[in-house]
C-alpha cells in the first residue's frame, strides 16, 4: 500500500483506516504483534489484519465488526491528528483543479501545517512530480517529514523549515503552482513569483479574512499576476431519510368520504409511490440538510503568472 498507489492486501507497516460506522473511523499503524482496542473489542494485527484484503470485514473480540480500508488522502484528511486547523477535501478539490495539478507537476506549499493538503498534493503529482513544502514551526516540520516517510511518499516531497516570507520556497523558476495558507500571504507573493516557472504558473492563496484577501490581490497585481480571481466553496450534505408527515384533520363533510384536494389513501401526488404506515400519513424519501453546516472556511484567490 501507499498513499499514491493502491495495494490489495494489508501488510506489516501499512497505515490502514479502521471504519466502525457512520462517520466513525481512525487510522492504525499495522504491526506484527500489536493489538488495537475498539468499542467492539480487540483487533489483533497479526491474526486479523496482516494478509487480509483491504475492504474486508474484521470481527473484533466482543463480536462487533469493523471494515479495514485502504488509506487515501481524503480518508487521511478526515482522520489525521490535528496540529493546526486543516483544509478539508472540499477546498482541496477546487484548489487542485484550479492550480491545474496533475502527474509530473512541481508544487510549492506553505505552511505545511498538519499535512492535510500536502498528502492530497503528493497523490496528485505522483509519480513524476514533487512537492516542496515550507513550514516555519520546527516540530511541525519534523512531524510532517516523519509522516511522509511512514506513508511511503517521502521521495515525492521535500520539507523545508524556514519562513517563506523571508526566505521563499528554496527553489526558483520551476514550480507549476504555488499554494499559500499563511497569515500574511502578501509578504510571500514575491517569493512565490520567483519559485514559479517563467510563464503560465498558477498561484493560490487561502485566507479566512477578507482584509487579507484584499491585501493579497493588490500584491498579486503589483507583481504582475493576471486572471486574479477570488471564490469560496462550501459543502452541503444531505441525509437520506424516509419522512412521514401527518395529514391534518380538516373535519368531515357529512357522509362524504372524499376530502377535497388531498386524498390520504392515494398519495400519488408525491410522485413516487409510498405506502401509508398508519391512517392519515404520507411517506416520502427526502434528502434532508444537516442542522448545521460549515458556513465559511476561507477565501481562495487564484492567479496566473504572466
Amino acid at each position: 500500500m501507499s498513499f499514491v498507489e493502491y495495494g490489495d492486501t494489508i501488510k506489516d507497516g501499512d497505515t490502514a483506516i479502521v471504519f466502525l460506522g457512520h462517520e466513525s473511523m481512525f487510522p492504525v499503524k499495522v504491526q506484527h504483534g500489536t493489538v488495537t482496542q475498539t468499542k467492539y473489542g480487540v483487533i489483533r494485527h497479526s491474526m486479523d489484519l496482516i494478509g487480509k484484503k483491504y475492504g474486508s470485514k474484521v470481527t473484533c473480540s466482543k463480536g462487533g465488526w469493523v471494515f479495514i480500508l485502504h488509506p487515501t488522502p481524503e480518508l487521511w484528511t478526515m482522520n489525521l491528528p490535528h496540529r493546526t486547523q486543516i483544509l478539508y477535501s472540499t477546498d482541496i478539490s477546487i484548489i487542485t483543479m484550479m492550480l491545474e495539478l496533475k502527474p509530473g507537476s512541481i508544487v510549492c506549499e506553505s505552511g505545511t501545517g498538519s499535512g492535510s493538503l500536502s498528502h492530497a498534493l503528493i497523490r496528485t503529482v505522483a509519480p513524476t512530480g514533487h512537492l516542496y513544502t515550507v513550514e516555519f514551526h520546527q516540530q511541525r516540520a519534523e512531524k510532517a517529514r516523519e509522516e511522509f516517510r511512514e506513508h511511503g511518499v517521502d521521495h515525492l516531497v521535500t520539507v523545508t523549515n524556514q519562513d517563506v516570507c523571508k526566505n521563499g520556497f528554496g527553489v526558483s523558476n520551476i514550480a507549476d503552482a504555488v499554494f499559500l495558507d499563511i497569515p500574511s500571504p502578501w509578504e510571500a507573493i514575491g517569493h512565490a513569483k520567483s519559485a514559479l516557472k517563467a510563464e503560465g504558473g498558477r498561484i493560490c492563496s487561502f485566507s479566512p479574512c477578507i482584509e487579507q484577501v484584499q491585501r493579497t490581490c493588490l500584491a498579486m497585481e503589483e507583481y504582475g499576476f493576471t486572471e486574479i480571481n477570488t471564490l469560496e466553496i462550501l459543502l452541503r450534505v444531505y441525509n437520506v431519510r424516509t419522512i412521514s408527515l401527518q395529514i391534518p384533520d380538516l373535519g368531515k363533510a357529512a357522509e362524504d368520504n372524499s376530502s377535497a384536494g388531498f386524498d390520504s389513501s392515494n398519495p400519488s401526488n408525491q410522485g413516487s409511490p409510498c405506502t401509508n404506515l398508519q391512517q392519515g400519513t404520507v411517506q416520502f424519501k427526502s434528502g434532508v440538510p444537516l442542522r448545521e453546516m460549515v458556513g465559511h472556511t476561507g477565501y481562495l484567490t487564484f492567479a496566473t503568472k504572466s
Partner: protein
Amino acid sequence: RKIIFEKQWFYLDNAIGHIYGTTFEVTSGGNLQPKQEVEETATETKEAGTDNRNIVDDGKSQKLTHDDIKALKDKGIKGQEIVQQLIENSTTFRDKTEFAQDKYIKKKKKKYEAVITIVKPSTRILSTMYYAREPGKINHLRYDTLAQMLTLGNIHAGNKMIVMETCAGLVLGAVMERMGGYGSIIQMYPGGGPVRAATNCFGFPKLFFDNLHEFPLSKVDSLLSGTFFTETLPSEPEDNMVVEEESNGLTDEKQTSLQEAEEASTTEAAMEINQTEEQETTDINAEDVEFKENKEKENVREKQRKQWERRKKLIETAALLREKNADGLIIASKFHPTPLLLSLLEFVAPSRPFVVYCQYKEPLLECYTKLRERGGVINLKLSETWLRNYQVLPDRSHPKLTMSGGGGYLLSGITVVLDKGKSDSSHSEALKMEEPSCKRCKVQDLHC
C-alpha cells in the same frame, strides 16, 4: 481558417510560435498582433463627482451616434482611441464617481478593444468554459462539482478506472488529465460509440489513448451473467469471402452492435468506413468492371479486418472488466444513476471510492436506498457544493452579482467486501451503525 468568437472574427495564423498565454490585438484585417504592454497613463481628467444624485439617465449623454462610432471603426481606429473618444464625448463622464468612471471604461474597453488571449487547455479552462457556454452538453455539471468528483474518487496515476459519462467527454478528459497517461481507463458508453468531443480539446499526447478502452453498456448484462464470452466467438477474417452483407461469419448479437458502431457518426471507425465507401463510389464510375470487382473485394476485406480488430478489442476490454478489480468508478450521465451504479459497481474492487453525479437530487435518493439494500458500500454521502465568486477591489469588495443556482449533486462512497449471505443481518446492523437515530424517526428506522 476564420475563427468567429463573441462577434469578433480573426485568423489564427500569426499566433503560431508564440507562448501560451500571449495576448493579441485583432487588427482591422483580422490578423493577430501581440499586444504591447501599454503604460496606463494617469487619466488626464482626474475630475470626478461624489455621487449620482444629479446624474439623469436620459440616453442623451453620449454625443457620438451609432454612425459616428461606426465611421471611427471603419477608419481603422484602434479600440483604445474609440474608448477615449467616447469618454470625451460623454457629458456625464466627469460627474461620475471615480469608481463609476472605472466601471464605464472597463465596459467600453470590453466592447471596442478587440483583445484575444490564447491559453493552453486544461480541465480548469474546459470545465468552466463548458459550464458557461454549453451546460446542456454536460448535464449542468458545474466545474467545482467536477473538481469534487476527481478528488473524492482519488483519481491518480496508476488507477484502473471505469468511467461512464455523457458529458461530451469532458469528464473523461478530466480523469485522463489526473492520471497523466499512467494506469488505464475503461469508458462505458451507450448506443453506438463514446462521444469524445471535449476529450479531444485537451490536446493529450497520443500515448494517453493507448490505455483508454471502451465497452458498450448494452453488453454489461451479458458480461455480468457470464454469457458474454460464449456468445462472442473469435473468428479469423476470411480472405476469399466476398460478401455483400457483413453478417456472415459473425454471431447476430455481435453483428448488430458492430453495425451500430459503424452507423454512429461519432466513432472514428465509422467515419473512416464512410470515407472509403465514398471513395469507392467515385472510383467505380471511372473504372472498368474487372477493376471494380477487385476494389470491392479489397474494401470488403478492409471492413472485415477492421471489424475483427474491433471485436478483438471488445473481448480484451471485457476480460479487463471481468477481473472485477477496478480502482474506482465515476458516473456522470443523463441516465438514471441507479441501474448504472448497481451493475457497474460489480467491476470495482473492495475498499475503493466511487462517485455518481446527477443533475437532480431525487434519483440519488433512490440510488442511496438501493445501495443500502445491496450492501457492500460504506461511507455513503449525498452532497452538493455551493460556489461563490467575489470581486476584490480596494473599497469595493463584495460577492459578485450573479451566482450559479445549482451545479448538480454527488453521491459518493467506498466499496467493501460484499457479504452476500449475511446481507440481512448486516443491513440492520448497518442501520444502527451508519445512520444516527433521531428521536422522531425511530418508528421509520426500519424503512430508511
